[in-house]
């Protein structure tokens, strides 16, 4: 089948590859780039396990063709920790508040939270629940995920405040 050349930024690095027009972004990320963060739970846009951040939006990467991400700037969970390995506040929140069990939904949840907290830095519990409602978790019952998001929001807000002072 005819292949198309694509080029995009993933976790700060420019990446390129040749893909079929029908290749899903999730398959490009996982199969061609070898990422293991974004997961596949349905391939039908329901579960959110494949969520990545794309040009400032949360995107279910099974819903997009790789060619649609041409020139896009993508962040996956692999790009969240600092270069020195320090965990991002959201990652820390999930660990501190027991926001994960099997971990399969976690990369998607973290990426969704990342965008949610930029859109709404101080969400109520209700807003968190709506905000992550496109991401399914079969293990945790969400209560501790909500806590994890709150933990991250508080920590990020503290950091912003400190920086402003």
């Amino acid at each position, binding site marked *: 089948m005819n292949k198309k050349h694509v080029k995009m930024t993933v976790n700060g690095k420019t990446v390129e590859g040749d893909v079929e027009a029908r290749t899903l972004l999730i398959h490009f990320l996982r199969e061609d780039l070898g990422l293991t963060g974004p997961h596949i*739970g349905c391939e039908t846009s329901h*579960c959110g396990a494949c969520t990545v951040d794309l040009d400032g939006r949360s995107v279910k990467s099974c819903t997009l063709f790789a060619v649609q991400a041409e020139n896009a700037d993508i962040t996956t969970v*692999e790009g969240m920790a600092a270069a020195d390995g320090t965990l991002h506040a959201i*990652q820390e929140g999930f660990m501190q508040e027991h926001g994960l069990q099997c971990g399969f939904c976690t990369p998607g949840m973290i990426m969704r939270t990342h965008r949610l907290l930029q859109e709404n830095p101080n969400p109520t519990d209700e807003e968190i629940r709506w905000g*992550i409602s496109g991401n399914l978790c*079969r293990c945790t*019952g*969400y209560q501790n995920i909500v806590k994890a998001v709150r933990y991250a929001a508080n920590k990020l807000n503290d950091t912003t405040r400190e920086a402003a002072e």
Partner: protein
Amino acid sequence: MSDAQTMTLEEREATLGGVGTARKRKEDVRFIQGAGNYVDDVKLPGMVFGDFVRSPYAHARIKSINAEAALAVPGVKAVLTAADLKPLNLHYMPTLAGDVQAVLAEEKVLFQNQEVAFVVADDRYIASDAAELVEVDYEELPPIVDAFKAMDEGAICLREDIQGKTEGAHGLRKHDNHIFEWEIGDLEGADKALADAEVTVKELITYQRVHPSPLETCASIASMDKIKGELTVYGTFQAPHVVRTVASLLSGIPEHKIRVIAPDIGGGFGNKVGVYPGYVCSIVASIVLGIPVKWVEDRIENLSATAFARDYHMTGELAATKDGKITGLKCHVLADHGAFDACADPTKWPAGFFNICTGSYDIPVAHVSVDGVYTNKAPGGVAYRCSFRVTEAAYMIERMIDVLAQKLEMDPAELRLKNFVQPAQFPYNSALGWEYDSGDYPTAMNQMMQAVDYAGLRKEQAEQRDKVARGESRSLMGIGVAFFTEIVGAGPSRNCDILGVAMFDSCEIRVHPTGSAIARLGTKSQGQAHETTYAQILATEIGIPSEDIGIEEGDTDTAPYGLGTYGSRSTPVAGAAAARVGRKIRAKAQKIAAHLLEVAEGDLEWEIDRFKVKGLPEKEATMKEIAWAAYNNLPEGMEPGLEAVDYYDPPNMTYPFGAYLCVIDIDIDTGESAIRRFYALDDCGTRINPMVIEGQVHGGLTEAFGIAMGQEIAYDELGNVQGASLMDYFLPTAVETPIWETDFTVTPSPHHPIGAKGVGESPNVGGVPAFSNAVIDAFSHLGVKHMPMPHTAWRVWKQCQELGLTK
């Protein structure tokens, strides 16, 4: 002096991170960074992909299969059909239930989406393209969808491969579509109790067909090294060691040349216990092609072909006195097992442990009979986050208690309190043959009733009912009470085995010279935090901080043989092995300590992480020092090293219990239910990690909520599976999911080395009846005795309409 010597006792306890601490999870570090290693993350050099051609029909004869067009697609390596597997005797595989299941359909297909051919190609896109090109010519046959019609006279025989066989793995077959009849208890006694009773109730309680649907679907990669004659299989296996044994028996490859690896698993809930055609086909394809073959199920395949759960039609009967003392129970179950009997139950238990259905109540006489039948539906019958058929049993009895309470015009909580097995009766022998290890039901029930102000809730409900009657409100309030007793931790080898292998479990530990350790177990976590909690058990036993104990499971080349993780058996069985292996280490450590301190063994006492000489508190040897000595300074004649193994065959199962309460508000005009409150009190004996326990309870309750309020794998009259996608199958999101209140009591198991009972499945078992009872309770004053699950808004609205409540 080292830090260890200057620390206070409390500081040492804290450093240890043993049993009872809310230790943060070890496994999180990799998962939050996308560095988990799930099956689909595994890539082997030269690996190709397999995809299935599946049947569009529920029941049809296969007239021909033509794979020419598929084979002509560039990149296609092979197309396997039953004709290819038959010479290898692999077109059928044995099931855990003593039946066989078609790996690839031979002459007939028996359920929609049944596996017909396996296409292997360079990548998943090509495999899927080529699967479309395989031409299968079918002749449609009438399907049997309704289990109640399966044994009708003249019903079409579904399983021609066993037609006319009057005996199956579990005794006589009454009909070509009959699998087994299983009965237990005292039929005459139960009949007499019913005949003599002042009050009786009878109700058909159906527990619908559902699916565990973990977020990760099933997958496997087989890699046959033809030169070495070695097979490696990666897969989503809750029981990897059993898979190795089965793979060896099926393929003829000796067991030591098969390595099964279950890497990280993205949730199991029973879905990943069985052996599926996908696993077998990836193995066969790899053996044939000599290259690694990966198979990953998609969500529709997952929901429609692997591992349904429940599908039990239970007719319950209770006998009681006028003042509410239960005098007998009888239950008949019609069990819809689908096209093959692939239930994941211990060999001798075709209906699992359904005979736990006398529940938490002291019922003097009982009888249960179960008829299993074939239908044109997917095989499975797994324990979806419960011990074998325990949630079905709990649902039946907890619903029946409410039905009886209604008839007696008694409060359902009061009726439960009146019939509980009393603390002094433990160990309690139930009428259906179990010996309950320990429990204190009244305390748990009373604690629950106080915590929620039960009397206040009932008062409010009465007022609310009046308001509705007066036309001042359109909202009905329901209160659901459930008190469950589970039976988990299979199991004693005298009555539990899987394919003949006794259901023990194991732990092996090696303490390194510098005082850290590695332990391996025969179970396999799918999110239950084994790496965290097993280390806590060991830490308490051997005085090495849990941070310094690595835990490994899932690789059959390194881990000791075990029966895997399901039926809440990890803590009761492998957790017990961990405690016992720790005690073996400590016994040797004590000898070494005596040698180091130049005293007799008996002069030593254990304190958190060291041995001290009695009466001479400054003379001590820490575990760290002892570990070092184990490699260079041993008593005369002692074998060097510090390692041990334990295979634990439990003397009994464990019996966790709990008291749950759900308050629900139902909108009469839309049928929508809002869960106002859910309180769950669990007693799982000794609590190893309260944080993990709470997480397990939250997750299990959410699954129970999904089951009770929305999940169903339904079929239309042609056997087309309805709703096998996440568009239709209800997996709760954060928005609908209620807020959970958790609580506990602690009644240790007397026979478990640390008194733990297992908790992962309790919330599913107790949650489902609590939700269902709440919905039905909202209508009970209007004479409604039962409403079938799932309690979707549509069904609830229809109930409102039938009662003339809607406008």
